[in-house]
């Protein structure tokens, strides 16, 4: 009673496999959000091809800043890590992760690699002045106090001025910014990503 494969069924299966296979090919065209990646992430296309969505980086992050991207942010980046400064900042520069970065060390696929602290640039911060306590006449500059980078924030008459070229996108200022809603948010603009896995 062993059932042989009928020729027609075989062809149907082949066609189905072909269609499903090419669906995978066009999946690349699906839209997804640009997010702030952990330090030392490969350029996005390589990152997406190498990251197996295992979550090691997310679970071993020292500060807990990493979260998995949700399905709503795009099927293609679903489950990949992003920096969420509302949970915690990233301490790759001037913090606990200067020398050894658990997110990088635990990444089994080298989608994240170690880069020197001077070369870390995950993105930059954006200012919504309407929400800023200092801009509205109060006293604050908490962002200036917590920023580890010289010249990324320079106060002028008690109001912070942000220099996105210098900002490394660590998220400390966003995390610390007191008003609700916050006057700061993190974007991947200006990020420096890694071309090759060494």
């Amino acid at each position, binding site marked *: 009673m062993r059932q042989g494969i009928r020729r027609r069924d075989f062809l149907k*299966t082949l066609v189905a496999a072909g269609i499903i296979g090419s669906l995978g090919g066009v999946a690349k065209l699906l839209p997804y959000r640009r997010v702030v990646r952990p330090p030392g992430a490969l350029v996005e296309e390589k990152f997406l*091809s190498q990251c197996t969505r295992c979550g090691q980086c997310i679970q071993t992050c020292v500060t807990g800043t990493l979260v998995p991207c949700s399905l709503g942010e795009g099927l293609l980046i679903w489950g990949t890590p992003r920096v969420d400064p509302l949970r915690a900042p990233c301490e790759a520069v001037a913090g606990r992760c200067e020398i050894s970065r658990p997110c990088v060390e*635990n990444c089994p696929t080298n989608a994240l690699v170690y880069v020197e602290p001077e070369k870390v640039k995950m993105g930059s911060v954006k200012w919504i002045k309407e929400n800023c306590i200092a801009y509205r006449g109060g006293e604050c500059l908490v962002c200036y106090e917590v920023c580890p980078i010289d010249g990324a924030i320079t106060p002028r008459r008690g109001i912070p001025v942000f220099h996105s070229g210098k900002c490394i996108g660590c998220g400390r200022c966003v995390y610390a910014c007191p008003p609700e809603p916050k006057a700061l948010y993190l974007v991947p603009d200006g990020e420096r990503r890694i071309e090759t896995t060494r």
Partner: protein
Amino acid sequence: MKLLDKLRLISSSSTLITYFTASLRGFITGTTAFIKGGLVCIACPLGVLQILAASLILTNQLLLALATTSLFLLVAGRFFCGWMCPTGAVVHSTHRPRGRRWGITAPLAIITVLVSSFLARLPVLCVICPVGIPFKLVFAYIFGIDIYLLVLALAGWLVLNAYISRKGFSWCGTLCPVGYLLGLISPKPLLHVSTNANCTRCRVCVLSCPSNINIPEAKLSDRVRCTLCLKCLEHCRFRGVELRFYKKKILG
């Protein structure tokens, strides 16, 4: 529901619960693609192959995990499929075998996944893996990520599974590329089912097998599909099927 299927549901939900608790407590990290606990790590072999196809990269950590996983497979084969995979538990307890099998679909599914990963330069199945979704749900829950789309994806898979099942095919026995690859790595593990002298060749076992394996005369290529679900053992009226560890009978 049969006793075995009840046990299967209990054992696979315990797997999820154990995964959940161990993750929460930090004993283990990662999802099915790559799980690490202390010095031990395991990886989904198809995940590793997909990364290889998508980016032509193979790292030491992946190789190490692949070795550990293969070791487990050499001992217990597709025990994961029969007793740990939540998706598999759904399949095994709902599918009614109708003696249909299509030997070519699962290997073709593996090839499709790999070719499509290569073309898309993405580990395509890892993105939407039906085996991994239950674990990812737990993971998303822990991190407070919205899970409604995940639940939707799971529902989509259930519909697909119902369709395949109505046609008489079992997802685990005929389509799941992950399960088939696990079997390919270890077609005849130390833990396996075999017929003994009591077997009368009545073929009840064959008809009860979700993978439609001809157990009395199983070849290696058939054994690849065996999920160690033990339905054959349960249905045999002559105690003719037994579960063995190497050559020693341990059940049946």
